[in-house]
């Protein structure tokens, strides 16, 4: 299980601000996203949601390690 932080519309979609993705580390970012998509509310994710690992933007093929801080990032709308 990999803990994932959720924000804004994604927190609304999953009904939580944090959840455990049913996948083990190490794994690729896109593997984590697929695991999240299978959870209740996961169908509301876009095709390629943004992910941050350790507070840095992560590509779909980046590797998540045990202990990493992982966040699923909705389309940003600051300013």
């Amino acid at each position, binding site marked *: 299980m990999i803990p994932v932080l959720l924000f804004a519309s994604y927190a*609304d979609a999953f009904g939580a601000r944090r959840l455990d993705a049913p996948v083990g580390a190490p794994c690729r970012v896109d593997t984590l996203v697929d695991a999240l998509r299978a959870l209740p509310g996961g169908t509301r994710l876009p095709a390629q949601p943004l992910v*941050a690992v350790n507070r840095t933007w992560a590509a779909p093929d980046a590797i998540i390690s045990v202990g990493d801080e992982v966040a699923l990032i909705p389309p940003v709308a*600051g*300013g």
Partner: protein
Amino acid sequence: MHSPDVRHVAVVTDPIDVVALLAAVAAPSSGATSLFLGTVREVNDGRAVTGIDYEAYQPMAESELRAIARETCADTAGLLVAVEHRVGTLLVGDVSVAIAVSHAHRAPALDGARRIIESLKQRVPIWKQEHYVDGDRAWVDPTTSGTARTA
């Protein structure tokens, strides 16, 4: 990465002190200062707005803001930068973001402020949920040029 030209970066919940931000980039070497303010306006996409909830992934938002400020300063010698973004519930007229940039000359100061607000809107993890007069609320989604209605 040490960067003394980035005078101040923060994501805050209290009202932004614009005068303090201007003071943060004041220097005897500065001949021009550009301040950009984002404010909550009463209408968006044709709907009457009463307020906005801003939410941030706080530590990453601050580190992205700081990275933008550093990159901007690295590309233009002599820039001084201070940035604050506010989160929480803001009402119409409230300042959501303030960007202060100073330089010896006006063109770099003006260009710097513009670059920072454009980059901020691209890559800083902050979100806003608009509150409408009819009680409805929606997260703003710039990738669809509109909003995703909730509940």
